[in-house]
């Protein structure tokens, strides 16, 4: 009754199977397996979850359940410039949510999505340990501190 069509390249399948066997194909290691896969692929599409299901011999519904439960897993590809807004307590009280809203408005995407040209993607983080600079925004490896909603346009300009 399953009609999912999986089209992965052979080396991708081998990679995922390899990750599973590094973790002894143990379903208890699911989180670690998913982490490693997400590091490699940048995200966890359905197809990858299907192969993990095969490798760990556990229902794919359970895997999807875990992927959708933890916010650090994503099923959408990261953009070329992944933007992360810290929503830790310090950043939050200093207005991080307004900054986030501005990014959503400017890019016309929601958290967890990427722009159609795959240039930018948007995610949120818990405290990144730079509370002195709150509110904090990360674009790729670069850190921006004391970001105000008005700064958002200028930050994005750096990447066009």
């Amino acid at each position, binding site marked *: *009754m*399953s*009609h*999912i*069509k*999986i*089209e*992965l*390249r*052979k080396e991708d*399948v081998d990679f995922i199977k390899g990750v599973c066997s590094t973790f002894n194909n143990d379903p208890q290691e699911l989180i670690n397996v998913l982490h490693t896969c997400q590091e490699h692929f940048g995200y966890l599409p*359905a197809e990858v*979850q*299907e*192969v993990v299901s*095969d490798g760990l011999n*556990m*229902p*794919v*519904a*359970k*895997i*999807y*359940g875990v992927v*959708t*439960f933890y916010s650090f897993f994503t099923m959408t590809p990261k953009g070329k410039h992944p933007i992360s807004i810290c929503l830790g307590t310090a950043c939050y009280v200093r207005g991080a949510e307004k900054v986030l809203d501005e990014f959503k408005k400017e890019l016309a995407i929601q958290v967890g999505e990427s722009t159609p040209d795959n240039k930018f993607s948007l995610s949120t983080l818990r405290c990144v340990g730079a509370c002195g600079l709150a509110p904090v925004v990360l674009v790729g490896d670069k850190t921006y501190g004391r970001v105000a909603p008005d700064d958002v346009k200028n930050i994005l300009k750096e990447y066009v």
Partner: protein
Amino acid sequence: METIKLTIDNKEIDVPRGTTIYKAARELGIDIPTLCYMELHDMNIENKPAGCRICVAEVSGRRTLAPTCATKCEPGMVVKTHTPRVLNARRTVMEFILSNHPKDCLVCSKSGTCELQDMAHRLGIKDIPGAEYAAVSTFRMDTSPSIIRNLDKCIMCRRCEMMCNDVQTVGAISAVNRGFMATVAPAFEQNLEHSTCTYCGQCVSVCPTGALTEVNHVPQVLRALVDPTKTVVVQTAPAVRAALGEEFGLAPGTLVTGKMTAALRTLGFDYVFDTDFAADLTIMEEGTELLDRLSKYLKGDKTAKIPILTSCCPGWVNFFEEYFPDLKDVPSTAKSPQQMFGAIAKTYFADKIGVNRKDMVVVSIMPCLAKKYECQRDEFSVDGNPDVDFSISTRELASFIKQANIDIKNLHDEEFDSPLGESTGAGVIFGNTGGVIEAACRTAYELYTGKKLERIEFTELRGMEGVRSATLDFDGLPLNIGIAHGLGNARKLLNDVRSGKSQFHAIEVMACPGGCIGGGGQPLHHGNSEIIKARAAAIYTEDRKKPLRKSHENPFIIKLYDEFLGKPGSEKAHHLLHTHYFDKKKKIMIKK
């Protein structure tokens, strides 16, 4: 066993260590309300996520209220189950659940049998502050051939998840997302139809709300009944007669065979027949296949597949097609009784009464939701005309009878019509776990040994344990029988078959715990396994009441072979009464 003493609502009690407060209270006659918790004691099935917190109580020495369904008794504990604080907490929990729950009880398919509705009533909930502002509808409806999912009504008790994963080991559904979007769904929130679901319906039978229900085919049946061009034939499965009465307030285990027959006639069915007849027919075909394979096997023929597996449960068939396609030559090729009945009704019987199969509508009353899917399978139709047109559940029949103003309790008992309504006790016991193989052995014994079976009841095959086995003496030949009910138990036996370790000659599998009496289409048991046991006992009573108790002695079966089929396993029998299985395992497709 070590016992401990505690006090609940000022009453003292001794309980074995490890007992939960909820169970200890029940011993004292204190009925603490529960919602997510569910137990089918005799089947070792328990759902204990401690998620809803309806069951809380005050416990000495604890600051917070304890969920009693998951908290163990401690020596000297003092528990209070109805203080103002407790009652308030219960109300808050209900307000939280109801705040985003649809309020359309009047038109909900679970209305009247909904545990959430009952709980709101029981806790005296008369209003939900701010409820009119709550946004509710967030999930799309999902309709499959058997089951409807309406997840706006899900309260995240996770009973269905436990059934599908722990009991059935299917894993078609799982808890997904968090917060208000949390629900139970197939992978990627795709439709059930595109998951590995077997349509066993066990999730439906434990869902406390209207989130999971069966597809309703009563309107189609009604339309056929009023269509003057149609001859409408009905068949009733063994397990239905042992449970239908519950829907009308009769005690569990009350047999309503005669009243059900009368009600069906009142509803307007032209012929009221019995699936038990087809069960007898199944035994003829499956029993012959068993003896055939067995004698080849005993002669050392390596191609003879032993053990033979029963194939009358469509939930089980779906399961092995998905998970054990490499073993698809092992099960018997005999169709299920539902499909055998349809095939005979639309050939032999249609010819007899001079009706074209296109003008005949075959309806089946089943304890089962998988049968809805089964009768829609392509291989069970001829030129697009299905052998069985509609399969409705015991619950749907009860509703149909109520809608038609029939006071079933006061109807006089009536008999099934002949010839497809005549059956033996062997056909009846198909409804219980162990019944199919017992029926098969009653016939196989006499055919194999040529002797009369002295002790008709193989009690060693009966019971509620998930996996059972027994060795029967076939006149010197020890025949090893395995039985599993619940797909997780079936998986255990199947793994042994796959690895070549299985010592059994024949294995019976039923997807539902208890067999069809515990089927997904039966009146809801609400976690009371006594109900399922009472149905099982009723089935055995019905068997004992029958003058004939062995399938091969059914004179109408004998006549069917004489007039129409030839002998069991004949070419015609194969064409009409046997099927083949498919490899439905998901394939991982690789881009070249």
